[in-house]
């Protein structure tokens, strides 16, 4: 493996986004290693025998609720020839049967039947000593937090709550206060390495500079109250922005009356920005990221889980699942749907992240041995009251290097 630049935490060499060997090592040491990965919302598995299929890194995964109601997850790979056991994105099933040779599995991923195992009429079939279970799909540990389902293949990683740690856990629980309701989902296909999206997410410095919609309409300016939390190991982060003192529509009116060039930028329909302070703490935006590939956002009243699935060194699927709470009234659901215009591939404040990460991929194409300069706020990894810092980005790389032993 290549050597890290001598400057340490303030430099990230560009080969980390390009090298196929790095990508393979990540699959093994991060996605299949000592981490917890987001799988789905519990609300997507409403009753016994419900299932969904997803990915953890390159690995196809079935997540199900067994007949007793227990959440299970296992590799979507038949023990026999390796075909997918389950093709559907979601549904309900009494058992899972591989279409290739009809080997069947229960909801925990146990091989329960091999077609014609003993042959027919004493002829054919598996010999008595055959052990197809030796190639059984791998099973995940499954844990949940506030309606989010996570899985890990590692026996050594601590419990999910310990993994997230005491700094970030309360920030996550702050949003996940009640049973969730799925509003819908879509996928933004990013033509770049998965880590470019994660360090974009952890980069509180970029938000008001890249996303001009934020700045034009005063949703998030670096002058507003806010800060960044980073977990002790650097792996997870939370950035938040305070809700501006907003008497009625004073905030929007102020935005419209601002001097100079901003006079041009007023919304005819400012309702899109109108937030109900549903958590009672005057936070307007909170972005939480968990290593390796999960993001939970609260942007005003828009709530979503974002799942990062690498598809090769140069491609990433970003799966968005927007949700509300099961007890939302019609007005709140309507508000969340209206504010969904802020996020996702067509979102006023999310669309650019796909572009920025793609520009990095293209910019560094011939510079694997050069490095990005990540020195805003110094060289440390720590919670910060300023968002003009790259502390959470350094945290990501600290955690990544530790997992990768690079």
């Amino acid at each position: 493996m290549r050597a890290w630049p001598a400057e340490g935490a303030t430099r990230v060499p560009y080969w980390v986004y390009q090298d196929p060997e790095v990508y393979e090592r990540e699959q093994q040491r991060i996605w299949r290693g000592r981490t917890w990965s987001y799988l789905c919302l519990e609300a997507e598995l409403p009753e016994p025998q419900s299932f969904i299929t997803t990915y953890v890194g390159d690995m196809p995964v079935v997540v199900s609720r067994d007949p007793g109601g227990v959440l299970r997850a296992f590799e979507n790979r038949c023990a026999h020839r390796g075909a997918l056991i389950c093709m559907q994105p979601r549904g309900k099933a009494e058992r899972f049967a591989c279409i290739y040779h009809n080997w069947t599995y229960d909801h925990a991923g146990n091989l329960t039947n091999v077609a014609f195992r003993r042959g027919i009429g004493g002829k054919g079939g598996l010999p008595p000593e055959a052990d197809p279970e030796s190639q059984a799909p791998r099973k995940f540990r499954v844990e949940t937090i506030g309606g989010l389902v996570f899985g890990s293949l590692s026996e050594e990683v601590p419990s999910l709550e310990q993994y997230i740690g005491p700094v970030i856990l309360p920030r996550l629980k702050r949003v996940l206060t009640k049973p969730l309701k799925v509003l819908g989902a879509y996928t933004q296909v990013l033509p770049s390495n998965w880590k470019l999206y994660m360090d974009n997410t952890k980069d509180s410095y970029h938000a008001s500079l890249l996303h001009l919609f934020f700045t034009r309409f005063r949703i998030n300016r670096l002058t507003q109250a806010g800060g960044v939390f980073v977990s002790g190991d650097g792996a997870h982060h939370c950035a938040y922005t305070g809700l501006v003192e907003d008497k009625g529509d004073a905030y929007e009116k102020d935005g419209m009356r601002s001097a100079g060039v901003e006079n041009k930028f007023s919304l005819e329909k400012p309702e899109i920005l109108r937030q109900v302070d549903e958590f009672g703490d005057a936070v307007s935006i909170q972005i939480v990221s968990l290593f390796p590939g999960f993001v939970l956002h609260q942007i005003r009243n828009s709530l979503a889980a974002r799942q990062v699935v690498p598809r090769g060194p140069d491609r990433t699927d970003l799966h968005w699942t927007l949700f509300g709470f099961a007890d939302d009234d019609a007005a709140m659901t309507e508000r969340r749907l209206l504010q969904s215009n802020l996020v996702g591939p067509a979102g006023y404040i999310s669309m650019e992240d796909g572009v920025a990460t793609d520009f990095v991929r293209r910019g560094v194409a011939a510079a694997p041995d050069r490095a990005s300069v990540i020195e805003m706020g110094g060289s440390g990894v720590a919670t910060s009251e300023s968002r003009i810092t790259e502390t959470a980005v350094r945290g990501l790389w600290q955690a990544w290097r530790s997992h990768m032993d690079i």
Partner: protein
Amino acid sequence: MRSVVEDLHARYAHALDDDRLEDWPELFTETGKYRVATAENEARGLPLPVLSCDSRAMMRDRVQSLRHANVYEPQRYRHMLSSVLISKLDGERVSSVANFLVIRIMQNGDTSVFASGKYLDRILLAPEPKYEERVVVCDSRRFDTLLAIPL
């Protein structure tokens, strides 16, 4: 009636493809609705739009944001429409279903199929034909990089 509806669809496609985004809201009634959905969310009965506008004013907001706030690489669309079906709703309105294909052309010439699906429309015919509602149901749940220009 068919020619009136197909003419409206054609003017819609040309406005977007010719980068006359400011003309786009004018093809709707003042309270016209526009929503981009995915076939998957529709089939699951889930209400989430990829983007939505509940009025012409909100469409103008989106155009203004695309022109002055959002940052994206210059790109053009080419809309292809086919298989238009029209039904009369009442004396003043018709509904229309049409297939669409949107090809995206980046500034370096990279050309790809960006979206396919169908337009489900409710059209007010007089005094001049305008969309009261256009729902764009995309066949795929996947969107490459970003969706800036309306479909």
